[in-house]
């Protein structure tokens, strides 16, 4: 791990507990500090409080879905430039383009992405070299 002292903080907003757990465990192994929220509303509150370096955002969620959360986030002064990577299993084209409008970094199909690949992607995003 290159930068143990100053671990990047990743907020995982994912209603599916197993997947959330896998990300938390996997990414922690890869040297990230992970925090988790299980719906959009919770995620929004946590993002405000924790100011993560990156948010991994699911789309289909109870209480508040991912796109609504992203919209609200972008409406906040503190959240308008926050890095967000959308990770979902719904490949709805309309939602893809909407999230692009809301300045999401990318729109990834969860089932296609292993922890290993995801780590690489996150490192790219956060400009971290192995």
């Amino acid at each position, binding site marked *: 791990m290159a930068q143990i002292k100053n671990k990047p903080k990743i907020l995982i907003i994912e209603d599916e507990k197993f997947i959330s757990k896998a990300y938390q*465990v*996997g990414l922690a192994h890869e040297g990230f500090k992970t925090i988790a929220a299980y719906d959009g509303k919770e995620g929004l509150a946590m993002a405000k409080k924790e100011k993560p370096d990156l948010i991994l955002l699911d789309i289909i969620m109870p209480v508040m879905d991912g796109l609504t959360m992203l919209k609200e986030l972008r409406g906040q002064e503190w959240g308008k430039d926050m890095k967000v990577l959308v990770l979902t*299993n719904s490949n709805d084209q309309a939602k893809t383009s909407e999230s692009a409008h809301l300045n999401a970094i990318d729109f990834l199909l*969860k089932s296609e992405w292993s922890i*290993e690949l995801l780590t690489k992607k996150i490192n790219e995003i956060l400009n971290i070299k192995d």
Partner: protein
Amino acid sequence: MKLRTKAVILVSTFIFLLIGGLLLYLDGYLRKYLKDQMINNLRVMAEVSEGTYFAFTENEKIRTIDWSSDGYIRNDTEALLEAIKSGNAEEKDKLTKELSAYLRERKIVYDPKVIIFDILGPTGMVIASSKEDRIGVDEAEEEKRLNAHKFSFAVKAEFGQAFIRPVIFEEDESAEPMTHVVARVFSTKRDDLGKLIPLDAVILLHFTDADKINDMLSGKWAADQGAVSGQALFQKYKTAEIYLVGEDKIMASSSRFDAGSILRQKVDTVPVRNCFENKKEITGEYLNYSGKPVLGSTMCLERDDLALILEVGADEVLAPLKEVSNRLIMAGLLAFLASALTITILSRFLLSGLRKIAMVAGEVAKGDLDIRAEVKGKDEIGQLAKVFNQMLASIQKSQADLFAAEINLREEKDRLNAVISSIGEGLVVVSADYKVMLMNKIAERILEVSYSGIKDKKGDKILTVLKGDKILPFEERPVVQAIRTGKAVFKELSDNYYYQLLSGKKIPVTISTTPLKYGETIIGAVVVFRDITDEKQLDDAKSNFISIASHQLRTPLTAIKLFVEMLNTGKAGRLNKTQKEYIEDVSISTERMIGLVNDLLNLSRIESGKLKSALMLVRIDEVVKSAIDEADVLAKEKKLSLVFKKPKNIIQSNLDADLFRQVIHNLLTNAIRYSTNGKKNDIIVRVEKNGKECIVSVQDFGIGIPDEAKSRLFDRFYRADNAVKADANGTGVGLYTIKMLLNRMGGKVWYESQIGKGTIFSVSIPIIDKIK
């Protein structure tokens, strides 16, 4: 007008003109002939009369010369001239008395025509006279003043010459007009040469003979003398006249009709003028002194300054012509009437056949087709009747055929109506100006209208067409586009069309609009539509299912995938060999499951038409390159290298890059999957332009495709036997997806293959320069 009447009028007119022309010609010819004849006769008679006149005057001259040669007169005159010359008055008086008595008593008594006998002296003075009071009269002066005689000629004349001056009127001499004749007096002695010695004296005889001249000219004199005839002209022609005219254009003999006309009647006519002014004798037709048209002939008696004129009234000369004309007209009229009658009768007989045909035609016009024209005979009319009857028969047959055809047509129409009304879909026919012309029951029911209520109304008065939530402008409606472009327009379920009715009800529909053509002209369109409310619901459910399934299937698979990975990578502690082997198997199965889910979802989206095309101008080589880059990892795993043969020129087209990349991706994954590690480990990708198409081919040197797979190769889920053996992980949807996607993009796919040697898959897509 009847044909018969026309024929009669025509022929009668022809005959009338013919006869009329003939009559006019004859009339003109006869008129000219008669005139010429008459004029020639007149000229002959005029010449005869001229001879008569000269003969008559010659007679008077002879009388004068005879008396001038009287010995007593010659001797006494000579003596008297001597006495006057010598101035012996006594002798002169004696001789004058003696001579005058001789003239009075011994001369004029023997010729009653001579009323005065003068002897004129050398100066023209009367020196002796039968009428003694005339002695001393200056006749030279009278010659000068009145041209009463020709003393001046006579006083210088030779013996035997006499000079005549006819038709002189001198009141002091006689109440009647006279003729003066002069002749020189010669001595009884002869000169040395034996010639008569002329005296300077002249005798002047006054003849009262005007009546005689008239009688001579008219032939009366001859009759008086006992001639059997002589006045033929005057007897035949009541208007015939012969008279003399003096230089002063006054009549010099009396008119036949007016005895007192002599020396009174002015005659200033064409022949008189010609005679005295041009010295020309004329013969012809002109107006006489009383303005009546006459035929006449003139003789100019230049010696005596007279014109002799013979005239006959033109009317009288041409009178016989009138009679001839009358007879001719009568004959013509008779001929005309006879021929008119003949043609009338003939035409009635000839045209009776035509009349019958006309009558039959009238009956036919009223609707009786059974009637026939009964005309016999082999002439043209008989032929006509025959043809007419044949025509009637033919019409009768045609009518029967027509009637049968009409029944057929009606049955056909009923059948068609039955078909139209039993079609399970709404059917509306609109005219080229978008008015409703026909509508079946289903259409009435779906659109909630009645045909009778909306007939001839334009479509936009009945419903609104929507695409999704958007109201279509009139010109974008399928029916309008079909009529304007002449091409069929189809709107399927995925096109999301709705009819919004007047009630506001919104019905999802599929629409098929076909232009209706008559030859090359578009006369309307047929619209067939279906209420797809049920399908729509099913489709929505299906979409939801896909959406839900994609999410719900993937979620647990993702969790499995992630935990397997963590086990595999030792994040949950080290695994022993067997565990590791098993977990590897789980990983592979999971990946396969994920791939399967992806393929199925993809497929279902393509099939449902939910896939949205986003056409953009892209470089095809770049799209292919990105697919190659994507597949490169996979290729490397199998130690294969992807070789890209770039096109010479940039190829650009408007297409959906994602869909096209998917096509190339599938080709590449297949090529990688079925390549064998043998001599050649390349996969060659070519991009070429071929006219209006772009062809991309992917060549591998793998297992090849068996012939028996050919017919089913592009079927859904089909996999060839050798493919299953080579790689169990395939799903059998790759080529099917390629085919479906190319169908959408207007492209094609084909291949060449040899078992064990490899395969070339090629796809073509149209190059679209502009987005329509």
